């Protein structure tokens, strides 16, 4: 499907992404299909200034594979990775950080009725240094974006992110709001999206089990991660 920009589109935006390399770079996926009825409302239509991920990519630090997956374990035969991934998949400590409504359902998923502990996902760590998976549960506002990104960057590799709820997946019911982020995949990489407003606890557990499957398929590898919304290759 080839789409051409409409004549009225802003010219300072980058072209439509075509390669996988390009998908890694931008934080804000340029939109050329639609124009706001009031473009000035967004500070003159300027780009986002959240560029830390872009700078991180440019610095090349993310491409060093230090102690993330292989590191000192490179000497072990490749098949050992399967075991390591199994271990990682079965011990996912979420970060104890709820943003809004979904946090209650996240807690409900960990409590007696829907016991996430059964899969080894229970010890909710209060400190990001010890957490493996960031469940972004609830609406992320623009004021919260900075702290949230810092939390993500404070987590040690390997780490994963689960976007829980419509607000974190795409903006949800706050899609017109002046102060919410329209999907957290604009500021940080996301591995699993769990839609729903809020999703049931079973939904979150299903998402976490999907994450386990992804880990077993080696999805957490940093260079393979696409930053930004998941856009089809042919767009």
């Amino acid at each position, binding site marked *: 499907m080839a789409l051409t920009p409409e004549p009225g589109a802003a010219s300072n935006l980058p072209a439509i992404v075509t390669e996988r390399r390009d998908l890694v770079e931008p934080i804000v996926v340029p939109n050329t299909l639609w124009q706001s009825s009031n473009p000035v409302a967004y500070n003159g239509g300027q780009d986002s*200034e959240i560029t830390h991920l872009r700078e991180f990519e440019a610095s090349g630090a993310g491409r060093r594979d230090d102690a993330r997956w292989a590191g000192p374990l490179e000497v072990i035969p490749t098949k050992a990775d399967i075991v390591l991934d199994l271990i990682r998949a079965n011990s996912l400590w979420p970060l104890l950080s709820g*943003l*809004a409504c979904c946090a209650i359902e996240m807690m409900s998923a960990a409590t007696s*009725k829907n016991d996430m502990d059964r899969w080894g996902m229970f010890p909710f760590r209060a400190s990001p240094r010890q957490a493996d998976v960031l469940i972004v549960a609830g609406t992320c506002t623009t004021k*919260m974006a900075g*702290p949230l990104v810092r939390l993500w960057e404070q987590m040690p590799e390997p780490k994963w992110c689960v976007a829980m709820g419509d607000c974190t997946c795409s903006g949800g019911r706050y899609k017109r709001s002046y*102060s*919410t982020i329209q999907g957290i995949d604009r500021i940080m990489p996301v591995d699993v999206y769990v839609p729903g407003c*809020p999703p049931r606890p079973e939904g979150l557990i299903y998402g976490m089990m999907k994450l386990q499957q992804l880990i077993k398929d080696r999805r957490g590898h940093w260079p393979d991660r696409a930053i930004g919304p998941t856009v089809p290759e042919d767009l």
Partner: protein
Amino acid sequence: MTTTRTPFDIPAHASSDDPRVTLDEQLGVFEPIPPYPPRTEREAEFYTLRDGEMFVNMGPQHPSTHGVLRVVLKIDGEKVVDLDPVLGYLHRGVEKLCENADYHQAICYMDPLEYISSLFCEWSPVMAFEKLLDVQVPRRAEYIRVLSGELNRIASHALFMGWFALDLGGLTPILWSFIERDEIVEMLAALTGQRMLFNYFRIGGVNGDLNHEFMSRLGAWMSKATAHIDSNQALLNENEIFVRRARGLGVIDTATALQMCMTGPNLRATGVPFDIRRAHPYSIYPELDFDIPSRTEGDCLARYLLRMDEVRQSLRIIDQCLHQMPDGPVMAKLPRLIRPRPGRAYAAIEGPRGQYATYAISDGTDQPYRMRIHDPSFIHLQSVGLLTPGNLIADTMAIMASLDPIMGGVDK
């Protein structure tokens, strides 16, 4: 001799609210001091350190801030000297969104405000819109509203109990209270179709009539509810450590509570039996027989025990609703598109945390011209700054939990 340090001495660095976080290379420190000169008297006073004091930045991600509250604590050792709550990390602009939505859609934005007592967030705007429209709600709908509302109140108080215990270090109460909460929420899901954000109340009634699954779940739960609540409380009420920590902590007297505009259980714990269900009756509450519990101590333990008493009263109300519920329609006859006459309406109800109020202005179009949401969490969180100084760090969490704020309601 005390040395003081003002914000001007600190080299400029990025604000924590700025997404482009850059740590100062040489310092490597992130002080919560704002990088600009103080703009108000209070800010200047707070962000000036005396000898031996330091700031601790609690939040926006902290296990016991009940969401994304950020509290800057000024501590001297373990003692909290002063604190400055920083809000807005969950500000979603609901009031503005409501002004851009029509009357039915506006109710949909209400649910996520106080997400563990959503029905009360819907109730006050619905009542305000009904006042604007001069609609008479069918009696059966009123009974269903009270019934589901009181169930939601019990769920909310159950979570309060769990969180309060969790912030005091207890692990088990929250899991036990979540069992009750899950049962109630599943029951309401059978009634409303959603587990948390019910979106059940409509202008002129409720969305649907009682159904079989709801009634059977409710009956099964009611038969064992009292025993469950008693066993959950036995875990805490007879626990010496818990009682010693909560008693005499964060005492607030009646005059101060009224000055702080407090309502609900937090006000009633100081000795004023002020409950909007009795003080300014609405719905069918005048026809129901229930007590307004109140306590005189005004401390954290009183606030906790008072909520537990309220749970018992709610059970009474549910029982009466089930026995007295009349037959009839559950929705008033209304046009699809609502255009109230220009005017203003104010409606307040008693929720699990206090007074939920909505002030709606209509300009004759199908969208509210202005919709002001008054939320008790927002008001009560304010008094943390009054109650905490002089106590220890651990008490900050206990006091905050005993006031029971929900950040969705605080930040709107």
